[in-house]
């Protein structure tokens, strides 16, 4: 078990490193650099030279990457393009804000999704299921920017209950984000709930049809006892991975929602830094997002393994 954990961890570190190389090469291959992106049509002559010198863009790409990597290993992510702030500090605030958004959506969304998914499955093809499933499909298929704009129109412009656009600065105390953060959380909850509840629903239905459920039913075990003792524990296992992927998606920054609401999170910063060709910031965010993906998936596999004895023993036997 421990050996497996270590192996997975090492693989994860290698994945993160590969991602950093891919991102670096990718941004290098885009037309132009940080200076031409900044100066636009004025990128000529002396002013361009000055800019490239300031940002150290005159050196070969390999040298810049290895210097960045050496510093990153030591935890130094460099300074921002205008040289004013530490990138770790800038990205830190954005990460915190994205965490706020993600945890809000998870707290509201995961219980809701589990509840609705189980209800829909147990009352399959009845009105409750039809309502829940149709709403879920609608929530999944309507693009986020449409549902976001609709919610802003209804709750902010018409009703005036909550502010529509987030105007709070990235480094403001967390409390300042209320109530502005409520609408983005609402939109995220809508989308992620739909995804998770559909998995929950099909998983519960599948388990309901399994031999052991049928057996228990024929033996005369009370219905609710079957549901709680046999069906739910088995049915919810596969959903752990879906939940993990959703969490990773949330933490990776939800670019569209952050842009529509002007929310100062990781996703928007990533897009901005790519269009600015701001490699240090892009790299820092890529590192964080890759680590989150690797970490959360590792955690999910671990949980599944703990919850499912068969997977554990299978692994032992293979050894």
């Amino acid at each position, binding site marked *: 078990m421990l050996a497996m954990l270590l192996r997975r961890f090492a693989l994860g570190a290698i994945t993160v490193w590969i991602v950093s190389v891919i991102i670096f090469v990718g941004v290098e291959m885009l037309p132009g650099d940080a200076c031409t992106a*900044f100066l*636009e049509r004025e990128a000529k002559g002396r002013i361009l030279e000055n800019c490239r010198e300031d940002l150290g863009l005159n050196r070969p790409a390999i040298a810049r990457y290895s210097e960045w990597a050496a510093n990153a290993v030591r935890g130094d992510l460099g300074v921002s393009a205008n040289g004013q702030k530490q990138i770790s500090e800038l990205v830190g605030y954005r990460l915190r804000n994205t965490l706020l958004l993600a945890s809000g959506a998870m707290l509201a969304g995961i219980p809701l999704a589990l509840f609705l998914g189980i209800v829909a499955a147990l009352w399959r093809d009845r009105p409750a299921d039809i309502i829940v499933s149709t709403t879920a499909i609608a929530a999944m298929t309507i693009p986020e920017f449409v549902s976001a704009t609709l919610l802003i129109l209804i709750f902010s*412009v018409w009703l005036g209950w909550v*502010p529509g656009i987030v105007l709070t600065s990235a480094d403001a105390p967390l409390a300042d984000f209320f109530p502005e953060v409520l609408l983005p959380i609402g939109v995220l909850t809508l989308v992620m709930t739909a995804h998770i509840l559909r998995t929950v629903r099909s998983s519960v239905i599948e388990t309901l049809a399994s031999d052991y459920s049928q057996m228990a039913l024929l033996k005369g075990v009370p219905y609710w006892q079957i549901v709680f003792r046999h069906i739910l524990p088995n049915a919810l296992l596969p959903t752990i991975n879906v939940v993990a992927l959703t969490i990773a998606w949330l933490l990776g920054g939800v670019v569209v929602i952050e842009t*529509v609401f002007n929310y100062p999170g990781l996703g928007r910063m990533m897009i901005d830094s790519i269009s600015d060709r701001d490699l240090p910031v892009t790299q820092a965010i890529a590192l964080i997002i890759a680590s989150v993906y690797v970490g959360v998936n590792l955690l999910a596999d671990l949980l599944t393994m703990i919850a499912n004895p068969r997977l554990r023993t299978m692994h032992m036997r293979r050894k």
Partner: protein
Amino acid sequence: MRNTVAVVSALALSASLAWAEPSGVFRQAHEVGSGSGSTLDPISKGRVFQITEKIMSRLVRPDMDGRPSPDLALSWSANEDATEWTFELREGVTFHDGSSFGSEDVVYSLERVLDPETDSPARSAIAMISKVEASDEDTVKLTLESSFADLPLLLMDYRLRMIPEGAGDTIATTGIGTGPFRLVSFDAEGTTRLEANMDYYDGPPGVAEMEIIGITDGQARLQALLGGQIDMERGITAQQSVMLEGSDRFDIQTIPTGNWRGLVFRTDVAPFDDPCVRMALRLAADRQGMVDLVMGGGAVIACDSPVGPGDQYRAEIDCPQDIERARALLAEAGYPDGLEIDLHVATLEPTWPILAEVYQEQAAAAGIRVNIVQVPSDGFWNEVWMQKDAVTTRWNERPADQALNEIYLSTAKWNESYYKDAAFDALLAQARQELDFDARRALYVQAQEHLWETAGTLIPYHVTRLVGTTARVGGLDAVENNAVRWHRVTVD
């Protein structure tokens, strides 16, 4: 009698403004055009205009008609051939840090713009200044390379703002100026806070605090205005204005500007090196159709002249679509069966793709087959513009002399159409030397007419700006951005 009344009421108004205590918070968004490169240095590419316009002053500012009027310079005069200019400065003005403003600061600020090492984008606007000297504490003398009667016009440039002597290395974050508002905190991507400068030379501002908030997405800025979270948005499109019209919660100002969008054909490569082909390309355009379809009517027709509708040197040219003549010109140039061109378009400017499609339709009638080539917005200015033979372009308003010299002169840095015409160059040089206004105007008009005959650039219109505000905003001048008097703005 009417004059006396006007003067008395004007005095009463200014007196009441001077006594009223600044109150309220005015909120406005900016688009964070330069991202993390944003700065308060007025002459850097990353300047955030929506902030610098409120905290810093120029020597000369536009009045409500766009003519030069005193800002930090009270009066100016030139020697006979307009090669030496003397500016008398306003006395008793202080910077936000308490230091007093004087001629040394002007010398420092202007020399900083002219420094070839810095190579500021603003440099080309005043490159004809060869020497800046302080005659005494309140007088500055500018020496020019050659005669130029319209120097004050160029000093109104939105970037030429005065900063304290020696502040060049720190101005990017301190933002110390002499404007009606002073910087409290600067955060381009978040919220920048300003407070009223009680020592402003024209009296204390009407608003106590300003918040300039970075919102990248245009749709989000509109939502913020609709929700009353911001008080003003300058980038309303004709399509969006429907949401503000007819509501008593919002006001819309309609302001003609000199900003233009257009299509550029490189005059140094075939087939565009033939003036007949260029004329045909431009005659094929139905400009009113473009204004209606692309801008929803929110633009003023231009006849390929960059000089805006509010400019005193604008030439009045008539340029209706003429398909017959376009066909005849193409035949004359050796294309009796029409012409096929590749037009490179990005979505960098949202109206470009629509403009290109409308032109494609219109030009087809003259036998010009336009292939629209979609290119990425990223790197457009460096990989496509001035590289490909036919591209889209956009420019912000600049005075006639500057627009013609910076973009069409054969030696210009931004000569996007590679336009080289000795006669045109001569006209511009002559206009600069000419000291008589009417004669000078005639020369600029002639230069624009010359462009209409020969240019490689199709400029169908100048954009009309829609400024949306919440109804609680008062005293906002309905003029070009450059001329707004921010200290007169109030909020209820």
